[in-house]
């Protein structure tokens, strides 16, 4: 953990809430992207990330710096997302993924933008078909680029479990995408 983070945490604990705002600003996008890919809904992801930050704030005194602050946040966010998924029924309409990614530059090449949007929808839908455990490891590994040890800490399972989950998740994702290709 950086000295700067330690300072911000210490300030939060002294009651300077604005310091927590700095920490939120530092990690909000990474957390949001992960939770978004996990929940497949930007609205839900935003709510979950906010809830995760509130939980982190309430328990900030418990963080002693033995692990990375970000890993600690990750663990809170993923567990909050899992709880959220259990509590809320899946949305009946498809995700808005794809619409969001068409930025100004892409709009100049509409065909390319459409292809990318379709590709994103395909891969996100395949991801959504995996179990929560399998989805989480693929997001952390391939999207977040974490190593086994970091993932084990974030998910609270042994490294061997991460390895075996990734193995099965990769094979399952491949199967889904092959099936989807055959059907299309």
């Amino acid at each position, binding site marked *: 953990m950086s000295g700067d983070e330690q300072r911000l945490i210490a300030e939060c*604990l002294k*009651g300077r809430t604005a310091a*927590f705002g*700095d920490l*939120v*600003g530092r990690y*909000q*996008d990474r957390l*949001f992207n992960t939770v*978004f890919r996990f929940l497949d809904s930007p609205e839900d*992801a*935003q709510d979950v*990330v*906010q809830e*995760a930050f*509130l*939980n*982190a*704030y*309430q*328990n*900030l005194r*418990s*963080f*002693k710096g*033995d692990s990375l602050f970000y890993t600690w946040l990750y*663990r*809170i*966010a*993923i*567990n909050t997302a*899992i*709880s959220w998924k*259990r*509590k809320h029924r899946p949305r009946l309409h498809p995700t808005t993924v794809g619409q*969001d*990614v068409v930025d100004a530059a892409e709009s100049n090449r509409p065909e390319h933008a459409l292809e990318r949007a379709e590709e994103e929808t395909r*891969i996100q839908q395949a*991801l959504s078909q995996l179990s*929560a*455990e399998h989805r*989480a490891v*693929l997001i952390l590994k*391939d999207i977040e680029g974490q190593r*086994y040890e970091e993932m084990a800490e974030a*998910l609270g*399972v042994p*490294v*061997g*479990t991460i390895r*075996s*989950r*990734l*193995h*099965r998740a*990769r*094979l399952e*994702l*491949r199967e889904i*995408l092959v099936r989807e290709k055959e059907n299309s």
Partner: protein
Amino acid sequence: MLSDVQLELLTAFVDGELDDRRRQAVLQLLHESSEARSMLGQLQENAHRLRELPREKLDTAFAGKVLQAIAEKGLIPGPAVMPAILPLRRRMPVWLRWSAAAAMLLVAVLGSWGAYRFLFGPDKEGPGPMVEHKDPPAPPPQPEEKALEFAFQDLRDEAAQQLLVEELKKEPAVRLAVTVRDQKQAVSRLQDALKHSGVKLLVDSTAQGHLQEGRPKTQYFVYAENLRPDEVTALLQKLSDQPQTEANFDKLLVTSLTGDDRVELSNLLGIDPEDLKPPPRVAFTDPIPAQPEPRKKAKAKKAAPQPERLALVLAQEPSGNISPQIQAFLKSRREQRPGTMQLLLVLQQA
């Protein structure tokens, strides 16, 4: 067709976390097998597709919204509370009922806030599980996610032991995550404690090597079958019997044994995960006398010599070899008897 081992090597290759030896094995496989090359290509392409997904972002006002919510709710950084090390895994229904039952009984029997805290934690509104071990945060917000968690010192209490027995009776297979300060000493204590239940603990040669070298990052699996709930509880109680100043066994988290656990364990044992599935649970019938009278024991021996009951210690890092200890353990396996359970105890360095 590619074998499971080959597929596992290929997926690990995509993860980029193979050691040199295995990496060479994959390169050799790719050299020899077009099927392996095709499979690896697909796996890598899918990983690439995931990496290429656009990064979604929140608007810059988000931090302000969080601070506003903190102010509106009047939140403050709360006090450090009980540990909650909850892995991302399915919970068994039996533990859903644990909190209420345990609290009522323990509060009544022990009459102490300390006992109440040890099962519940003081803050029901706390966040999900944390990484902090010494002084971590509140339990997760959803009570149904709670697993059964103990500090070892609390297992000396008779009421806690009784509750643990009652709950274990309902499960055919459990996983105990045990946090210890010294793994080598922990294995030695386990050997002694299991011996009291008539179970001999074998230490796989790879695990022996790791224990000798004192690798703190290695996790050790202790696997046993055909243990009765009262035997498991007695085992844990024996481990909890330690002077406060030299306490080695720290925390215990009890969950059901999941399919993932079985896969991991079967990989280490070199057997099919199906071979680790317990039979359907039947009513507890206490088929094995807890402490047979010496005379009865002698008679039983004359009638039919009981096979030696074995448990096994494995290092989590697979060596790829089936050690003599694993072979002996597999040879000693018997059909699971009614009222007994499979036990996977995971030793984690504190």
